[in-house]
Structures are given as structure tokens and as C-alpha cells.
């Protein structure tokens, strides 16, 4: 034995066990070295491996373990101490690393395990999602079917088509064996089989409406599974096989009245129809929830479509009715128009036809009155006149009134002199009033405009009527007529609350009050005054004649003039006051140049401008002759008048300084006269100046005058100043050619 520091193995190396250990150690080492290599290879290959450094650690552990076993191979034989040292180091390292690894694995293995659990969880989730997808797809299919069905149903507005289409489409979508619709009868006590899918002509089965199964279906808005044996489901002859499941759903039948304002729609409707759907027999199919939902939706849609159809039917019916009514109205209107035209024609004809003879009678009677008559005859003629005047008034009144009622009367608006109207009334009334010894007074307010715009004739008629009534019903006393411009306080009269006049810038309200001290009117008669044909019962009025239309017409005229008329009386015997207000326009301010030429104070040219000048005037027209003479006389001339050419030639002498002759009369040859005068007076200074008076100064006339030797032409009408200046010019220069 040498002291080589070798360590002897404990067992002899040739032992069999040792040999097996040796081989095992060798393979273990091999394996231990190849495992990291494999690990490295696969890790490098994989993209994701979160624990790389763990791998390193593990690798180290394995490598060291391998190293240990490898080194162990040398310890089977005699080995040096160095080997033993290396072995020990390796073992120590291995121990450290393996402990560290063990410690680390405590952390890592739960993580790795949880990864696995997560993986399992995700797989489950995926399976679930798959299932849901399947469901959604089914639902979408259903939705598509519903939409298509709805589209089909709503594409028509015909009731039957709607229902038929519903059944067909449902049958197709759900692959039904049979689909039927039961509608409530008119009485509402039974359900009648109205439509089926397969059978072409349902035989008209009826079923009482108050069966429990039907009530059950009607009371729920969902589709309800019912037994195939109940009456509503026994549509087809029972087959040998098991009938498929049956479902029934209610279809509300909505009316127009259900679509009221607040609720949409009000489902307190009582009427339902019943839709029964049967799955094919022997198919072992079940009603799925989504199919039931489809059926419910369709039922609702059908309800809506039916209500639309109903509304449409109603509106079509209403339209037809309206058309009929329109035709009838049109006919009625045409008839009315024909009637109105006939009446107008009648009135027009009667108007003319009645007035002509009336006019003749009145005119001739009044002429007759002027002739010599015996008292008897006079009385007769007066009676004729009176009666015919009454009749004429009556005709006028009736015709006027009918036109007023028609609304066809329109005011003739124009500018007129308001004062003149009143004065004319006064002038007309005065003779009669003085015969009756009534005193009539007229008061026009100072601010009353002189001119107004309105219907003069009708205003006069109204005033005349009112004043005439005052005169008629007064036996003695006085009548006062007052006209003022109504101011705003007066406008709102307590007695006429419904009359609200509004004055404006270019209108004013004329208020006329006629007060008389006559017989008066009793209060109960006052409302009747303005109604046509109504007369008071008192004898006084009865005798005075008249048709009672006067005031009615006045009222209408006053209304046309946007005014109001009323009568007040304190009672019988106390006289009465008639007041009316009418709206009149104010004319625009007159332009100054339009004002007439106001006669000036006679100028001091003196009337004797041409004292004693002898002048001859020849004019066929009496009036203009007189006017010319007047002119010349005013200027102091001594005028001789002749009316014909012969007379002129006869009378003219050298004393006449000027001869005025009118040459605008056709046929009268003033020119001839001029020529003859010229012939007569050969000496120029003896010849009178010849001046033509003419209405036109065209060239022809002037030329003619010049040709015949006239000295001048004056255009008529001749004013005083013109005549004066003409004479002055003539006498100065002996010629004047033209004076316009």
C-alpha cells in the first residue's frame, strides 16, 4: 500500500453489483446531460415560455447532477484524492442548486397548474359561446322570417289578402301542417272558421266563444299551447297518427275608435280572432320558444294590418259618400242659381214694365192737373195722382228692398255737398210743412264738413224719409233737424250697445237728429218700427198711407253706410226723435287751382269803358246772343241784336262800329255776310269792324275768316276782360287777329 492519498472504494470493483452501478451511473449521466439539451432545443423552438431563468436553474441542477454521476464513475476504482475532491465539490454544488430549485418549484408549480385550469375554463367558455351563437343565428332567422311575413302582410290593404298571406307565410316559415283563423261572428257569440291554409273552402264551422280554452287564449297575450282535441283544433279529420302540437294565439281586431289620442292602441278591445297553428303530426317536433315568439309577433302585426285595412275601407266609404254629396250639392247650387237668375230676370222685367206705365200715368196726370178742370174732375185727377204716386213708391220700395236683401245693392260713392243735401230736403219739406203750419228748423254744426264722400242719393232718401215721417205724424208744433259730427263720447251710446263705430282720419260719423212734437210712439211699438210691412195700429198712421217699408229701407241704407238708426219717444202724444248715424268719407283737400273763379268785387274799370259804342251782334242762338249782349251792355255799348244774316245785312249801317257774328253755326253763312258787308261799305273807314265769334280756332276757320276780310276771331266763351281788351285793341288798331 502506498500513501498516494487515494481513496479506496468500499466495495471491490469487480463485484457484479458494482458493474451494474457503474453502467447505471453512466446512463444516468448521459440522460442528465441530454435532458438540458433537449430542453434548450424545444424552448428555443417555442415562442412562449415565461420561465427562462427557471429553465437555466433547472438546467444547472441537471447538469450538476449528471456531473455528479459522471464523476461517480471514477470512484469505482482507485481514485486519487483530487477526484474525490472534485466529486465532493460537485456534490456540494449539486446539493445547493437542487435545494434552490426545490424551493423555487414551490412557487412555480401552482402557477403552472393554474394555467391549466384557465385553459380548461376558456375551453368551456368557447363551447358556451358557440352555443349562444347558434341561438342568435336561430333568432335572426326568426327575425328575418317575421320581417318577411310582416312585409307580405303589410304590402296589401285588402283584408282577405292580409289574412291569407299570414297563414301562408306562417305555414311556410314554421313548416306547419295546418294553420287556421277563427273570426268572431257578427253577434259576437261564436267563432267562425274563416281561413285555413290547406283546405280551400272552409266549411264554416262555428264554435261558441265562451269555451274555457278560448277564454284562456284570449286572456293572455302570449301564444298558448292547447290540446289537439279541443274544438278549435279539430279542423282536419283525425288521422291515424299522433297529431302534432297545437298552439293558439289571439289576434286583436282593432277599430278606428281604438286609436284614440292618448293610448296607442287601446287594448281594451273586446274582439279577438283566434289563430290556431298545428305542427305536422308524427314529426315529434316541439314548439320552441322562438317559434312561439314569432307567432306572437305575427299576430300583432296582423292586428295592425287589419286595422289599417279597416281604416282604409272606412275612408274609401267616406270618400264615396262625400262624392255623392258633392254631386247633390252641385245640383242644388245650380238649381238655386237658376232660381236666382229667374228671379232677377223677373225683377228686372217687372221693374221696367211696371215703371213705364206708372211714369206715364203720373206724368200725364200731373200735366192734366195743370189744365182747366172742373172741381169734380180736379178731385178725380188728384185722386188718380195720389194713388199712382203711392203705387210708384211701393214699387220702388219693394224693388229697392229686394235688392237690399239680395245684397246686390251697392252704394254709389261720390263726393257731394252735404249742406246742399240738407238744404234740398228742407226746400222739399218746407211747402208741405207750411201748409200744415209746422215750423221746420235746420241746424248744421259749424264743424260739419261741407263736402263728404258717400252715396248722396240714398242719404237724401234716408233724411227725407225720416223728416217726412216727422212731418207726417205731426199735426202741429215744430220739427227740428240737427246734424253734427259725432264725437267719440257720443259714439258709444248706452242705447245702442251693439254699435261700435270707430272714427278715423278719413272718415267721420254724421249724426242727424230729427225731433218732432207729433203723436209720438208707444214704447211697445218701437221695436217693430224697422221691420218691413209692420204698421202701428193707431188710426192716425193707418190713414196716412204708406206701405210701412220706408223705415225698413232707411235702416238698410243706414246699415250699408256702416251706421245705426233708432227712434226714441216718450210715449203717445209726446212727440218722437229719430236719430241716425252714418259713416261718410272726408274728401281730400281740394287743390287750390280747382277752386272756382270766385266773383271778385267789381273792378273799377267802370262799366262805361266804351260809352255809346254802337255794336251789332248776330247770333242765331238766343241764349248766347243774350249773353254777348249782356257783356257788351255791361261795357257800356249800345247793342243791336239780330238773329239771321238777312236781318244783319238789313240792319247794318255805318253807325255800327263793330259787328260780332257767330260763325260756328253750320249752314249759316257768316262768311257770306262778311263778304256782303265788305261789298256794301266800299270805303274802309266807314266799314264796321267785323269780328267772328267761334267755338273752334283751327286753321281752316281762321283762314276762312281772313279770306272773307274779317278783322278778328274770338274764341268763345268770352269773358268780360277778354271782351274789354278785344274792343280796346280793335278800336286802337283796327285789327286784331286772334283773341283766344
Amino acid at each position, binding site marked *: 500500500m502506498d500513501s498516494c492519498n487515494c481513496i479506496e472504494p468500499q466495495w471491490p470493483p469487480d463485484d457484479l453489483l458494482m458493474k451494474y452501478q457503474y453502467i447505471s451511473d453512466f446512463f444516468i449521466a448521459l440522460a442528465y446531460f441530454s435532458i438540458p439539451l433537449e430542453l434548450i432545443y424545444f424552448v428555443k423552438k417555442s415562442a412562449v415560455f415565461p420561465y427562462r431563468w427557471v429553465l437555466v436553474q433547472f438546467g444547472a441542477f441537471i447538469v450538476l447532477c449528471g456531473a455528479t454521476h459522471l464523476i461517480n464513475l471514477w470512484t469505482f476504482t482507485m481514485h486519487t484524492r483530487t477526484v474525490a475532491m472534485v466529486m465532493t465539490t460537485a456534490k456540494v454544488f449539486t446539493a445547493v442548486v437542487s435545494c434552490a430549485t426545490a424551493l423555487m418549484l414551490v412557487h412555480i408549480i401552482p402557477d403552472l397548474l393554474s394555467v391549466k385550469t384557465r385553459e380548461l375554463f376558456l375551453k368551456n367558455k368557447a363551447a358556451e359561446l358557440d352555443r349562444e351563437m347558434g341561438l342568435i343565428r336561430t333568432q335572426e332567422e326568426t327575425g328575418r322570417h317575421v320581417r318577411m311575413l310582416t312585409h307580405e302582410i303589410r304590402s296589401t290593404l285588402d283584408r282577405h289578402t292580409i289574412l291569407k298571406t299570414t297563414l301562408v307565410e306562417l305555414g311556410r316559415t314554421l313548416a306547419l301542417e295546418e294553420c287556421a283563423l277563427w273570426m268572431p261572428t257578427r253577434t259576437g257569440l261564436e267563432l267562425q272558421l274563416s281561413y285555413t291554409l290547406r283546405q280551400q273552402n272552409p266549411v264554416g264551422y262555428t264554435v261558441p266563444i265562451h269555451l274555457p280554452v278560448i277564454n284562456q287564449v284570449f286572456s293572455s297575450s302570449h301564444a298558448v299551447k292547447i290540446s289537439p282535441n279541443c274544438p278549435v283544433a279539430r279542423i282536419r279529420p283525425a288521422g291515424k297518427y299522433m297529431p302534432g302540437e297545437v298552439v293558439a294565439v289571439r289576434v286583436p281586431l282593432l277599430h278606428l275608435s281604438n286609436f284614440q289620442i292618448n293610448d296607442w292602441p287601446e287594448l281594451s278591445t273586446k274582439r279577438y280572432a283566434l289563430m290556431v297553428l298545428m305542427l305536422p303530426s308524427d314529426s315529434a317536433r316541439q314548439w320552441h320558444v322562438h317559434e312561439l315568439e314569432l307567432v306572437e309577433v305575427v299576430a300583432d302585426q296582423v292586428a295592425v294590418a287589419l286595422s289599417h285595412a279597416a281604416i282604409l275601407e272606412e275612408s274609401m266609404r267616406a270618400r264615396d259618400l262625400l262624392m255623392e254629396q258633392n254631386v247633390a250639392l252641385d245640383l242644388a247650387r245650380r238649381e238655386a242659381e237658376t232660381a236666382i237668375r229667374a228671379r232677377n230676370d223677373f225683377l228686372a222685367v217687372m221693374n221696367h214694365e211696371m215703371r213705364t206705365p206708372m211714369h206715364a200715368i203720373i206724368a200725364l196726370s200731373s200735366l192734366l192737373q195743370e189744365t182747366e178742370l172742373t172741381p169734380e174732375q180736379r178731385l178725380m185727377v188728384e185722386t188718380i195722382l*195720389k194713388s199712382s204716386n203711392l203705387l210708384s213708391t211701393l214699387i220702388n220700395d219693394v224693388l229697392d228692398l229686394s235688392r237690399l236683401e239680395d245684397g246686390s245693392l251697392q252704394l254709389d260713392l261720390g263726393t257731394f255737398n252735404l249742406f*246742399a243735401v240738407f238744404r234740398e230736403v228742407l226746400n222739399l219739406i218746407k211747402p*208741405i210743412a207750411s*201748409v200744415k203750419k209746422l215750423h221746420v228748423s235746420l241746424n248744421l254744426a259749424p264743424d260739419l264738413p261741407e263736402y263728404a264722400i258717400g252715396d248722396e242719393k240714398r242719404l237724401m232718401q234716408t233724411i227725407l224719409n225720416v223728416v217726412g215721417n216727422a212731418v207726417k205724424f205731426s199735426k202741429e208744433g215744430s220739427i227740428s233737424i240737427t246734424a253734427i259730427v259725432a264725437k267719440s263720447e257720443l259714439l258709444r251710446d248706452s242705447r245702442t250697445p251693439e254699435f261700435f263705430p270707430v272714427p278715423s282720419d278719413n272718415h267721420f260719423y254724421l249724426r242727424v237728429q230729427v225731433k218732432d212734437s207729433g203723436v209720438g210712439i208707444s214704447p211697445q211699438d218701437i221695436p217693430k218700427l224697422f221691420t218691413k210691412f209692420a204698421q202701428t195700429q193707431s188710426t192716425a198712421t193707418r190713414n196716412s198711407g204708406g206701405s210701412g217699408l220706408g223705415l225698413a229701407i232707411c235702416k238698410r241704407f243706414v246699415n250699408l253706410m256702416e251706421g245705426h238708426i233708432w227712434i226714441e219717444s216718450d210715449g203717445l202724444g209726446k212727440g218722437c226723435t229719430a236719430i241716425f248715424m252714418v259713416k261718410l268719407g272726408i274728401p281730400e283737400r281740394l287743390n287750390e287751382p280747382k277752386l272756382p273763379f270766385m266773383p271778385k268785387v267789381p273792378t273799377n274799370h267802370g262799366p262805361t269803358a266804351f260809352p255809346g259804342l254802337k255794336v251789332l251782334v248776330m247770333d242765331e242762338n238766343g*241764349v248766347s246772343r243774350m*249773353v254777348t249782349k*249782356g257783356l257788351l251792355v255791361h261795357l257800356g255799348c249800345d247793342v243791336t241784336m239780330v238773329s239771321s244774316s238777312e236781318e244783319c245785312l238789313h240792319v247794318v249801317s255805318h253807325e255800327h262800329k263793330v259787328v260780332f257774328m257767330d260763325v260756328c253755326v253750320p249752314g249759316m253763312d257768316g262768311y257770306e255776310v262778311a263778304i256782303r258787308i265788305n261789298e256794301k261799305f266800299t270805303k274802309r273807314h266807314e266799314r264796321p269792324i267785323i269780328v267772328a265769334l267761334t267755338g273752334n280756332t283751327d286753321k281752316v276757320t281762321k283762314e276762312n275768316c281772313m279770306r272773307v276780310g274779317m278783322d278778328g276771331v274770338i274764341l268763345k266763351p268770352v269773358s268780360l276782360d277778354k271782351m274789354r281788351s278785344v274792343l280796346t285793341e280793335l278800336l286802337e288798331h283796327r285789327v286784331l287777329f286772334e283773341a283766344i
Partner: protein
Amino acid sequence: MDLVQLQRQFVDYRTSLYHEGFLDEQFTQLQELQDENNPDFVVEVVSLFFEDSERLLNELARALEQQSIDYKRIDAHVHQLKGSSSSIGAQRVQKVCIAFRNYCEEQNVEGCLKCLQQVRHEYSLVKTKLESLFQVRLPCRREIFFLSKMVLP
């Protein structure tokens, strides 16, 4: 009523006649010719005008009723009427006469008849106005009617 008021009324009424075109400056001229030597000049002229016009209107009516209308005669009458009315200043009558003469020239019967009617109308209007002005009164239908209706039992 006192004199001043009467005069004012008269003037007002007369002014209105000018405004409405019934009378024109010629009428004013006539009034100027009236003086102490000739106090009733205007009234005389106006009366003469009335007489003349009535006569002429009747003649015209008669002439237009004939089977064969003598337009020359009608023209002559209308000319006279025109002359008279222009002398007195009855403007509106004069205007219608001018239109009348045109229709005469055209020998248009309807036009003539229409104008005759218009002339009559205008004449009666101006007559009424002048009457009121001068209180020259000729009884008219309305007054007879009133008298009969109101006064007699």
C-alpha cells in the same frame, strides 16, 4: 234767417255747383254782368236757357223718333244746345253735346239716343241746381207726390 246768412247760403250753394262741374267760369261772367242797370240779367238768361233747351230737347226727341233720321237737323239742334249751354256756363251739358255731335257725324242712332238721354239728364240736373239757386221753381213729380201723400186726407 237774416240777410247775411241767406247770402252766405247762396254763395255756398253756388260754390258747390262749381265744384261739381255743373257751372264754370262763364256763369261767373254772367253774374258779373248783372248790375243796377241790369238787375235781372242772370235770371233772364237762365230762363231763356231753360225755354230754349226744353224746346230743343223736344225737337231732338221728335227727330230721333223718325223713320229716316235727318242727322243734319239733329246736328243743328245739338249745336244750338251746345252754344246755349256754353254761353251760360252749363259745362256738363256742353260736354255731352260735343259727344252727341260726334255720334251725329257717325250717323250712329244708338249713340244719339244715348246722348239724348244723357243731355236730358244733365240738363235736368243743372236746371234743378239753378232753380234752387234762384228759387225759380217748376213743380216736379216728387213734390206732387209729397203733397198728395202727406197733406190730403
